């Protein structure tokens, strides 16, 4: 056979086998009916108490359960707890576990497991965990099914803290909970509705779960993270897909059943696809602009207030989402879903006035230096920073906007160097986005710090002791009315001293194939109650 005909016949053979393969392959790549396959982001840390980005929480909601959960109205409901009682002066909580709870290894869930888990969680780096620890005197085992939490003093939001809307304290077996908190656990035995399959785990590619047959769901209907966690699929496959366009293409071809968050830019492609349903399933996010209080011009309150007048939430949110249905402007530092939302002192943030901003900037001591704006990661924060930079230029301020990856951004934001002297290391403005921290424990509790005097404390180094005092008063308030009053007071202080600026709420819808039913709205993607037809 000559080389030419060899090449030719090989090519022919390849072409033929591809054709033959196509038929069977097309059928194979669609997930079977009892398997729910979704595209998600990469997850690094699986240990629910350790730390890491938001994806750890997605993992947690599948494998682990917690004592309490929030329902749709942000009311705390028992989840693993059967009942709970407070003593008269509200310093001691007694929790009884539901009967029949089991870990994935078949062992029953005991009070000792819960106590050990709460202790490990409270040593973590989460904002709410820190508050929990601050008010905890002791956590004790009473008997196999009963535990108590003793507080140092009565604390108005104690139920919200122990429930924790973000990264709730996952209950893990006591043997694992003894792992020091700076070491990640390697055994992911939980008591949640899904069992993690470590053998099928490929970091950066996929995480697979199977239904936990021995899970005893509550009888109530699912509501947010509370209620019955009934599982209707046999297998849950979390495929990690990094590129937005790739995720959307895979959903449209049916290779996956669901995308947790549809990128705003690709929404149009899905809206016109009859096989795909778009629905908001998660709470939103909000843009945050941190300001460095150490360096001129923003060491001057007036320059910071200038930014409030400069920013238009409408404009920023349009740039991010492109659709008014996906965003909400909000005058309150408490976020607008919160019962403490108020429009006190919010004129500057709700109204754009470039002239006023220019004037305040000048009064604040701006003298022509280049303002260093930087931001990490996502398209949304980039949009936010781009609009901010353009507006700053409009009022005659020189701006250097830098987008960087998360690692570099986190390294830079802790730098207290004067950005006017060292523009490569220091910074004036850092643009970020956080989860819309839902009602009861506002973002404020973690992010709002006034203790940044002497370059200590949180990024931005806000130095205003009124903030700390009001936060304590808020936590200790005896009645809801009093708490609302303090909330409004705190907002006034925030808009006066401007530790950071919220640029409004925006959300991404989830998208799923039209045969997927029963998806539940929650702060994090959850996959109980969901089924395929």
């Amino acid at each position, binding site marked *: 056979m*000559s*080389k030419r005909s060899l*090449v030719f016949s*090989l*090519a022919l053979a*390849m072409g033929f*086998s*591809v054709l033959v*393969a*196509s038929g*069977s*392959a*097309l059928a*194979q*790549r669609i997930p079977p009916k009892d398997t729910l396959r979704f595209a998600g982001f*990469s997850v*690094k*840390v*699986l240990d629910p108490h*350790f*730390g*890491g980005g938001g994806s750890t929480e997605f993992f947690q909601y599948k494998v682990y359960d917690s004592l309490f959960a929030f329902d749709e109205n942000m009311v705390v409901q028992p989840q693993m707890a059967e009942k709970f009682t407070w003593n008269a002066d509200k310093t001691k909580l007694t929790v009884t576990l539901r009967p029949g709870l089991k870990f994935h290894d078949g062992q029953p869930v005991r009070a000792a497991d819960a106590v050990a888990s709460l202790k490990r969680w409270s040593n973590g*780096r*989460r*904002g709410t965990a820190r508050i929990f620890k601050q008010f905890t005197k002791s956590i004790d085992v009473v008997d196999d099914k009963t535990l108590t939490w003793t507080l140092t003093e009565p604390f108005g939001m104690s139920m919200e803290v122990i429930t924790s809307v973000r990264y709730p304290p996952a209950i893990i077996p006591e043997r694992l909970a003894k792992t020091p908190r*700076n*070491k*990640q656990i*390697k055994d992911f035995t939980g008591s949640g509705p899904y069992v993690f399959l470590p053998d099928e785990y*490929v*970091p*950066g*590619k*996929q995480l697979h779960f199977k239904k936990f047959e021995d899970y005893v769901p509550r009888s109530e209907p699912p509501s947010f993270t509370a209620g019955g966690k009934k599982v209707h699929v046999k297998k849950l496959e979390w495929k*990690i*897909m*990094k*590129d937005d*366009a*790739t995720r959307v*293409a*895979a959903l*449209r*071809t049916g*290779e996956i059943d669901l995308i947790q968050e549809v990128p705003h830019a690709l929404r149009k492609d899905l809206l016109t696809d009859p096989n795909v349903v778009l629905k908001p399933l998660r709470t939103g996010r909000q843009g945050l602009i941190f300001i460095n209080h150490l360096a001129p011009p923003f060491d001057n309150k007036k320059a910071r207030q200038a930014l409030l007048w400069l920013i238009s939430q409408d404009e920023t949110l349009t740039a991010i989402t492109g659709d008014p249905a996906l965003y909400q402007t909000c005058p309150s530092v408490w976020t607008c879903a919160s019962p403490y939302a108020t429009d006190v002192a919010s004129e500057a943030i709700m109204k754009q006035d470039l002239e006023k901003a220019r004037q305040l900037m000048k009064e604040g001591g701006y003298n022509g230096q280049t303002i260093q704006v930087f931001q990490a990661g996502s398209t949304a924060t980039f949009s936010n920073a781009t609009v901010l930079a353009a507006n700053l230029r409009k009022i005659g301020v020189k701006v250097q906007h830098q987008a960087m*990856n*998360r*690692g*570099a*951004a*986190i*390294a*830079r934001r*802790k730098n207290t160097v004067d950005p006017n002297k060292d523009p490569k290391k220091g910074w004036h403005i850092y643009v*970020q986005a*956080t989860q819309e921290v839902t009602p009861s424990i506002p973002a404020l509790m*973690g*992010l709002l710090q006034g203790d940044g005097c002497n370059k200590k*404390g*949180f990024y931005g180094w806000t130095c205003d002791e009124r903030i700390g005092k009001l936060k304590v008063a808020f936590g200790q308030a005896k009645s809801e009315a009093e708490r609302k009053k303090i909330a409004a007071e705190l907002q006034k202080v925030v808009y006066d001293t401007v530790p950071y600026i919220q640029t409004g709420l925006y959300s991404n819808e989830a998208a799923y194939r039209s045969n997927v039913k029963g998806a539940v709205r929650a702060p994090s993607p959850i996959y109980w109650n969901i089924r395929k037809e």
Partner: protein
Amino acid sequence: MFTYIVRRCFAAIPVMIVVGVFVFLLIHLTPGDPADILADEDATPAEIEQLRESLGLDKPLHTQFLIWSGNIATGDLGTSLLVSKPVTTLMAQRIEPTIFLAITTLTFAVFLGVPLGVMAAWKQGTWWDHAIMIFAVLGFSVPGFWLGFMFVSKFAVDWTIVPAQGFVSIREGFGTFLHHMILPTITLGSSYMALITRITRATVVEVLKEDYIRTAYAKGLPPMKVLFRHALQNSSIPIVTVIGIGFALLINGVVVIETVFNIPGMGNLTIEAVLDRDYPVVQGVILVFSGIYVLVNLVVDLSYSIFDPRVRH
């Protein structure tokens, strides 16, 4: 000859040391470290410092380097700081897609590129030649990711004849495997094929001017036989060399194409590790990539000396 080979093999050791030191310094001098990434958004600087200590990142750089290189000597590439799995395990899980993508791409590029190049050389100066060369230059001029997205939107989403993304192991069926490989292979292979076409044309054009080719024609051998038996065979050395050197191009392309088609390979692993500052993974993966490259180069170098005795000192 034997001593030359042995000498060249030993010469590969300092290269790997250079790579090791270089990569270690590069990644460790980069601002931001795994502790920053692992900690939460609202972690305080003191908490991050604590975490850094527990990861062993507070030790001086040279101590960390000694620990790392000591471990490598025993074949231990370390453990990922982020996903707490051994680097070797992570690589073992990821190497298969990359190897297969490289093989299919190589096959595609060689089986298309070489005949096209020979064709162009044979018809040098004609309309055929220009068309093939423009095609080849085009393949060289279009960004891979752009081409990939174009293919996906047409062939996968609009016409649904191929999958949009993903990798299926060859063990799960050759048909399914190949089906998933079509788009990534063509996308990645286009520039590689263009390179091979160009080089093949250039070398075959040279060879066709040689006297023995004229003699072969004069003897009345059929043109196809002259072309493939005599001309191509005598052009094979530079072509093979380029295939070896083009390996670098292939790896570059792999990083991009794996992202576009969501192929869980080594490229994907590396870029994620660089961005997350997962030191052991970055160091391990680059060391392995470089090792393969050095090996390929060694073979190319040896083939030089076999075919051109002047180079042998």
